[in-house]
């Protein structure tokens, strides 16, 4: 078997396609690295500036008083850019990079513009709406996901389309099978040979890419990032072996190598180019989402309902605190409802995207895209993780405010109203800080299903190739 593998590799190393592949992959990977080195520092700088600004808001508010912190909340939350952005861009420009802390709403002002009734902050999830100002042509990203998903898979077919049909045309297949080698050994030998001869230029290109990126002083890769890169490389090999198996399958069944290449290319075009987009459009036409205007219309009745409730509390003049409590309830309830509404919209949209992603998952190219996104820490799942992180932090901060207020004996412990809360300034260091984190084990969990599916694809195709090759007459 090793003999066959070795022979295959030697054969390939001297061929034109090997040279072209090496040049192409190297060029793409260098482009990718250069682009990353040019853009990543800017991205990190932007993030850090934004975080510093947001932190200064928090500090100012904490220094002012506990009430100010409770009313205005922390500054906006920003998504930490992933150091592995070059692996998968993940549609990042279309995703918002922040979760915003909305200013407290003003319910009533007097004629001079003084605020009589003002509520408290709430979380909101903005849209990334840069898109409709861009008059340039669409720029696609040369990330690893593209290089592996489109280019490497095509190369895999390019290396295998004549694996059996070519040998049959030359008559060498008969020669080889005349030796006492079982057919599955020949198949595995061919498979490994093709996989290895593709891996050589790919590994070389990846090495150059990582060398460029890791030696630059502007970008720093942690050990965890290296681990993730290793996983991504393994996934790339798995994905490549899928197309190698497909190539062997078709090549074993078809007599002429030209026909084999044609069938393979058509399959490739369908799997990699057409299926992801067509299936997504089909999926999105199932469930029209709530439009922006409808979303705003939903808001009004809820608010009116709350007003009525508030007025009831306001007119009861038994105790002064009762009024305050009604106010507090009104504010908190309002913020909560606003937040819930936003969250529901996010959930609705998320479920729609998830459905589309599940349907497009039939195409291995999409699976690969999702997997690389998952491990590179970019893309949609990552965005959801970020949103979850902000929600968790929000709860934490609100608990902190309530606890700190409870510790102040002068306070009436009626939250969200200036008269009912502690007015003392608090140390900004005591306030919990938001930290956007990435969790590898969590990524594994979400990716497990897709990984399994991809492996299944490979196994099915490999056994298909085996069956086809065993039954073929030479």
């Amino acid at each position: 078997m090793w003999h066959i593998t070795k022979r295959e590799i030697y054969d390939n190393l001297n061929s034109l396609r090997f040279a072209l592949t090496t040049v192409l992959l190297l060029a793409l990977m260098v482009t990718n690295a250069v682009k990353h080195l040019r853009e990543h520092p800017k991205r990190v700088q932007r993030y850090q500036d934004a975080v510093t600004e947001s932190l200064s808001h928090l500090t100012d508010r904490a220094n002012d008083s506990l009430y100010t912190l409770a009313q205005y909340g922390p500054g906006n939350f920003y998504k930490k850019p992933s150091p592995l952005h070059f692996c998968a861009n993940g549609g990042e420009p279309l995703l918002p990079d922040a979760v915003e802390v909305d200013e407290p709403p003003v319910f009533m002002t007097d004629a001079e513009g003084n605020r009589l009734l003002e509520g408290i902050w709430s979380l909101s999830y903005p849209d990334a709406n840069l898109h409709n100002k861009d008059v340039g042509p669409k720029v696609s990203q040369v990330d690893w996901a593209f290089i592996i998903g489109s280019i490497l898979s095509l190369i895999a077919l390019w290396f295998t389309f004549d694996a059996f049909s070519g040998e049959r045309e030359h008559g060498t297949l008969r020669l080889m099978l005349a030796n006492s080698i079982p057919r599955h050994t020949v198949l595995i030998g061919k498979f490994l040979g093709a996989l290895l001869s593709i891996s050589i230029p790919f590994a070389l290109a990846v090495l150059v890419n990582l060398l460029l990126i890791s030696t630059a002083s502007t970008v720093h890769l942690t050990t965890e990032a290296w681990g993730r890169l290793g996983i991504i490389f393994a996934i790339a090999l798995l994905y490549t072996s899928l197309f190698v198996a497909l190539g062997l399958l078709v090549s074993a069944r078809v007599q002429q190598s030209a026909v084999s290449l044609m069938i393979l290319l058509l399959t490739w075009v369908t799997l990699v180019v057409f299926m992801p987009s067509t299936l997504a459009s089909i999926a999105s036409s199932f469930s029209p989402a709530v439009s922006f205007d409808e979303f705003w219309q939903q808001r009004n009745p809820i608010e009116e309902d709350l007003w009525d409730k508030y007025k009831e509390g306001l007119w009861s003049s038994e105790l002064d605190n009762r009024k305050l409590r009604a106010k507090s309830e009104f504010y908190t309830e309002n913020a909560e409802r606003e937040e819930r509404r936003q969250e529901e919209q996010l959930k609705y949209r998320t479920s729609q995207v998830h459905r589309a992603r599940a349907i497009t998952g039939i195409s291995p190219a999409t699976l690969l895209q999702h997997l690389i996104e998952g491990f590179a820490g970019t893309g949609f799942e990552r965005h959801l993780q970020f949103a979850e992180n902000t929600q968790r932090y929000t709860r934490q901060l609100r608990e902190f405010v309530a606890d700190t207020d409870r510790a102040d004996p002068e306070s009436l412990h009626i939250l969200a109203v200036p008269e009912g809360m502690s007015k003392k300034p608090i140390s900004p260091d005591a306030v919990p800080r938001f930290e956007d984190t990435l969790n590898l084990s969590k990524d594994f969990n979400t990716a497990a299903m897709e990984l399994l599916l991809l492996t299944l694809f490979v196994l099915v195709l490999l056994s298909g190739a085996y069956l086809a090759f065993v039954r073929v007459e030479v």
Partner: protein
Amino acid sequence: MMTLIRRELLDNLMTFRFAAATFITLLLVVANTFVLIIDYERRLASHNDAVKMHQRQLQEKITYSAGEVRVDRPPNPLSIFNVGFDKRLGNEIEVSHKLVPSLWDAGMHGSDNPFMDMFASMDIVFIFEVILSLFALIFAYNAFAGEYESGTLRLVLTHPIGRGKILVAKYLSAMLCLIVPLLMSLLLSIILLTTSTSISLNSDDFLRIGGIILTSVAYLSVFYLIGLLISAATRRTSTALMLSMFVWGFLVLVYPNVILTVIPRPESPDALRTSAFNRIENIWETFDRERKHYLATDDFPGEDWGYELRGWGWRSEGFRDYPRILLYTYRSVMDFEGFGEKDEPKMPHAQKHFGFLGAQTIDAADRTWLIRKPALEEIFIQPANMERVWLKLSPVGVYDAATQAWAGTDLLGIRDFFHAARQYRQSLTNFFYDHKVFESRQWFSGDKGAADWSGLPQFAFQRDDINTNAKRALPDVFLLLMLNVVLFIVIFLIFVKSEV
């Protein structure tokens, strides 16, 4: 000659590749047409909803100053062929005297779920881009190389036929075969389009589709000739096949995706933006000074722009700026249902002031546009056009640009809408002047009769006629044709000189 063509034609027609090409193209085009029609219908419904809603919102307003006239860009039915910018750029915009509307001020309605934009969308031209070029190369790779190898070329050349004729025969017959899947799939998709009730195509649209077909044929021919060139130059089928696939991968897949990241993006001209914005800011500062000067010097004591009117309603005023797109506007809204008795003497003063303010705002907005228009052109349009030129180095880019122009979904086609919106603003302000709307009581108060929105001039947007489309598409079509001619000559030279 005819015998040659017949022979070649039969050779091509009876092959597996012809059947596969036809089948796959039909399948993909029909399946996607279905999806695209559904998508178009949804966008059309959302457009109609938006139009209705904007009208209703306008009718509800009882004062002119609170009303917002919004116009909506209908989706282009030919976006099914090439979506271009149709889905991407803003499709609703407020038309008012305060601002000369441009593409950058537009908003989006009906972009229900922005996350769904992450999934690539596809149109029929994209399918052709990928698939037709592939088929053209597959048909071409063994045209010469195969005949060299099997020796039939020598046989053919022993007959007294010119080499040029052989070349032409090969070219014509293969093109005939390749056009079959193209025409059949387009025919089916047009039939599907005409059966859909929401899509109405007029005669101009059919001419536009004709233009798209013409461009597709030219594109197909370019790739067939590239394949022939490789086939004639390499003389071996396996090498020719290998090289053809590489060239295809490079031209269709790699180049269009990679080139824009490779070329350095033009630095955004910050200096230009700042200077233009400063000039615009100056205009509005002057405007603000004059406004305050008027308030200070008019017959009414006090400098309140609302003339201290107390009533039921709301008022707000303020400047809004957004330096990135050179936006600067001033907005004053006063929306009252009624006033107290003692406010009545203030009314004529207020009315006079709003008349003055309206004229001043229009003047400032017009002057802003004179600065803004060329600046926006230089900041946004020119770099984008530069990038488009880079894309056109691959036939795929030329084909895409030409079909966009035919469909009217290119940038110019979308800008036509905003041009119409600007003209509408002109007629709107004329209407405001003619009917003395600014000086009217209805400008800020609905107590003596509400604002009458029914007399307003109506906005109508018609896509430009076919001549405009042709004018925009023909340079690119011409480019494709030139490429054809050049390739043909090169192949002819190689073929004539080659020894059999």
